[in-house]
């Protein structure tokens, strides 16, 4: 553990509280009116794909294109995940296949 016990508990509590708050929001905010503000609906449908795109970039943010291995393991593995998923559309297979390939690449090929 890199954080203290208290810091770790606090992180879990913050995530739990905000997640529950979001799930409970319609029951508290919209249960009387029954209508959602259009701007909330709009953000709700546009944010998810943008956030996932952002998260992919964040996951790969420490990859350096200029230093060896120039992000090649990441590029190959992401491509493998995408091809597997477009081909079989099996979430588990795609994640497992890409991860095993990546582990092999960083442990044995690009050491």
């Amino acid at each position: 553990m890199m954080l203290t016990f208290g810091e770790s508990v606090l992180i879990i509590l913050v995530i739990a509280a905000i997640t529950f708050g979001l799930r409970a929001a319609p029951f508290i905010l919209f249960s009387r009116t029954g209508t959602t503000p259009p701007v909330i609906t709009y953000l709700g449908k546009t944010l998810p794909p943008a956030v996932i795109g952002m998260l992919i970039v964040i996951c790969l943010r420490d990859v350096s294109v200029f230093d060896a291995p120039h992000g090649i393991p990441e590029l190959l593995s992401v491509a493998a995940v995408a091809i597997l998923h477009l081909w079989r559309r099996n979430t588990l297979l795609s994640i497992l296949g890409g991860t095993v390939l990546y582990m092999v690449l960083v442990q044995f090929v690009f050491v």
Partner: protein
Amino acid sequence: MRQAFRAAFPVTIPVLLGYFSIGIAFGLLFEKAGYNFIWTFFMSLTVYAGAMQFIAVSFFYGGYSLFQIAVMTLVINFRHIFYGLSFLDRFKGMGWKKWYMVFALTDETYSLLCSRKAPDGADEKKFLLCIALLNQAYWVLGGVVGSLAGSLITFNTKGMDFAMTAMFVVIFIDQWKAYSSHIPALAGIGITVAVLLIAGPDQVVIPSIILIVLSFLLARKQIEAKMTDSSELLKEDAETVMDDVKTEEKEKEGEGRK
């Protein structure tokens, strides 16, 4: 209650397969970050959000402020705001159990509750509660199993955290197919890459989120014109999740026969 349980269990089998295996992956990663099965148990019990818990593993390596964690949680789980809308009436009259149902509205539980009704003779409210309870049980159990397995594994786990990247790539592809406009997905990547190049890897999260939300609000007219009706989209999302678990279920059955 036993009757409702019997009616609910078969309905939850696709989620059992999905949650148990993804739960194992989460338990493994969390164990690798230095948090044993007790931590996994309590996090899966109190947070109970699949993708979010995966992302949260990186918080425990340090370097994030509580404020950053709060904002990320808010944005990543923002979609959950809409799940409750379908159940404002259906959860009425459930007493304290209503708040457990609200707490347990994950992507998978939401799509199950949307698509299934209690069979004749079974109590509808108990049926809903059983589905929600079973699903969380799978998630917690998978996590604990993964965590215990992770503490026993002795091989080199270097690179295993790529599972998180892989999961986002998978979700990205699913959403790409489900959405009528690819502007939000491309903007998410483009803005984050731009911030990364300008501000560097340590300052990327909050500026990216702010820029994404701001630009979406500013370009609302243009983007909205290219998107289909929101209710259709949310329904499509739920169906995509269900299609996924159904395919997995079928493939598991196929493997079983062999």
